[in-house]
């Protein structure tokens, strides 16, 4: 096994893929938290009749096959899609088969994993903490950042971990939107697929097994952090 692990061929293909995967998951998670928190807040609070349709739309990536998502993302970003035409008009070319395109695809793909824990936490919190903060002189935005978000810190952590882990394992959207360009859009999941296609099971095992261990460690860590903070609160 170690001879494969250390072989220049394997390393040359694996390291860029690992780095790109981590980069993609990191950027996606960060953007998802920034966009997901206000969206989750709106979903948890609004009396608007648009709440249910928007909520269903956010949940959609959870149930759709990733290839369906990827297909429409590709159409949207392609030279004839509305997003593609817009980016061309800006002089950026099309986003399909680029890292930016992958990030956009991943955001849509992992959106429910970021929004749902936050929405549940905001709903459970109720309006009271914000009301208290405002009676103490905090403006609504101030109260949101200094009271609502800190009170939802466990949900924030859960949302971050789930988004990150989910983005790591994405395959269908990546393949559709990004293709499999080494160094640009080739991530771990597509690399593993390539190894399996080439009957290189040993290499596939190394990468796939690594991902299983990593995902398990992340979820276990999250559970431990939660347990510790609950014990402290008691």
């Amino acid at each position, binding site marked *: 096994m170690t001879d494969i692990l250390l072989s220049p061929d394997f390393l040359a293909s694996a390291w860029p893929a690992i780095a790109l995967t981590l980069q993609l998951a990191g950027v996606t998670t960060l953007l998802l938290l920034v966009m997901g928190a206000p969206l989750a807040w709106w979903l948890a609070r609004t009396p608007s009749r648009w709440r249910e349709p928007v909520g269903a739309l956010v949940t959609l990536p959870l149930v759709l096959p990733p290839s369906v998502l990827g297909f429409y993302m590709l159409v949207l970003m392609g030279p004839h899609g509305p997003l593609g035409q817009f980016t061309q008009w800006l002089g950026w070319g099309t986003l399909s088969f680029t890292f930016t395109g992958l990030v956009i695809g991943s955001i849509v793909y992992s959106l429910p994993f970021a929004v749902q824990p936050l929405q549940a936490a905001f709903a459970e919190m109720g309006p*009271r*903490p914000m*009301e*208290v*903060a*405002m*009676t*103490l*002189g*905090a*403006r*609504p935005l*101030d*109260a949101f950042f*200094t*009271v609502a978000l*800190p*009170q939802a*810190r466990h949900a924030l952590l859960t949302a971050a971990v789930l988004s990150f882990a989910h983005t790591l394992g994405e395959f269908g959207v990546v393949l559709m939107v990004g293709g499999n360009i080494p160094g640009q859009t080739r991530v771990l999941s597509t690399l593993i697929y390539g190894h399996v296609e080439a009957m290189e099971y040993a290499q596939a095992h190394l990468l796939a097994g690594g991902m299983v261990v990593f995902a398990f460690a992340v979820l276990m860590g999250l559970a431990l952090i939660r347990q510790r903070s609950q014990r*402290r*609160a*008691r």
Partner: protein
Amino acid sequence: MSTALHIDLLLQRPAFALQATLDLPAQGITVLWGASGSGKTSLLRCVAGLERGRGRVQVADTVWQDDATGTFTPLWQRRLGMVFQEASLFDHLSVRGNLHYGLQRLPHHEQAGAQQALQQAIEVLGIGQLLTRHPATLSGGERQRVAIARALAVQPHLLLLDEPLASLDSPRKREVLPWLEALRRHLQVPMLYVTHSAEEVAHLADTLVVLDQGQVRASGPVAQVLSSVDLPVHLGDDVGALVTGTVAGCDPAWGLCRLSLPGGELWVANTGESEGTPLRVRILARDVSITLERAQHTSIQNHLPCVVSQIAPPVGHQVLVRLDASGTHVLARLTARAADQLQLRVGMHVWAQIKAVSLVR
């Protein structure tokens, strides 16, 4: 009575309407009293600006809301403190962090003064040793005391309390009540206090507003309102007068003290108060009976010569009678049959026999 708080509000909800016009005094505790659904909490939330009623709210010289001129100060710019039923402490901050949350948001030139106000609140509420603790480790009573101090730290012009004791069990309630009384004695902040508990009214109220189905049924000094005979019937067994007197001397052999009132004297339980101490006692209407002459051979110790000042129309088969003992007002609840047999009339001289007197403090 100087008017500090002027409220004239109308709140229309699909199944509920609230209408209140009130002029309330600048000091002490004003209790908004009513059953659940009477609109007392809605009224408090409208005063705070948490809900938007129509009308006018003015605290001292500051107008918080006046729909006639389109004035509406947002909640976070109103100088008020609010305490909710659950303490709602911020669990990501320590007790000290909670206490400083509002203070940090005051303009710089007011922070020194607010520090002093907070220090005083910490002393009066006895929470000095809790500052480094985490809210989750506090008892219910301690949590509510911290919440009150947190509200006082912004030097509010008005302190609003929405059933602050309702989520506590009876022992915790009795633990927090004295702190609230201390607050009234030591601080100058006027308070608007919502409750459905007659006990809290007896302990805390200086001014009483009785709310029923979104309407103000009575408002005024607490002794006057409580001895009025036309309170809402649903108060039932809680109907009773609040009487203030001074301790005139104690008889340790019997474990009793004489309480001197404008209209006579009452024997009350000896709780070790020294002579001259003012005491508040509660006399429930169901514990008062009427005799036409002073009863001679009776186990009842307390008798007051009174004049019948008002007789309410019978409710069910019971009649509520207001008696005036030279300025001390008590209520008596009689059966309609008894009232008829005694041929009670307004202006009649009678004796009130008082079976039980409960000390408020």
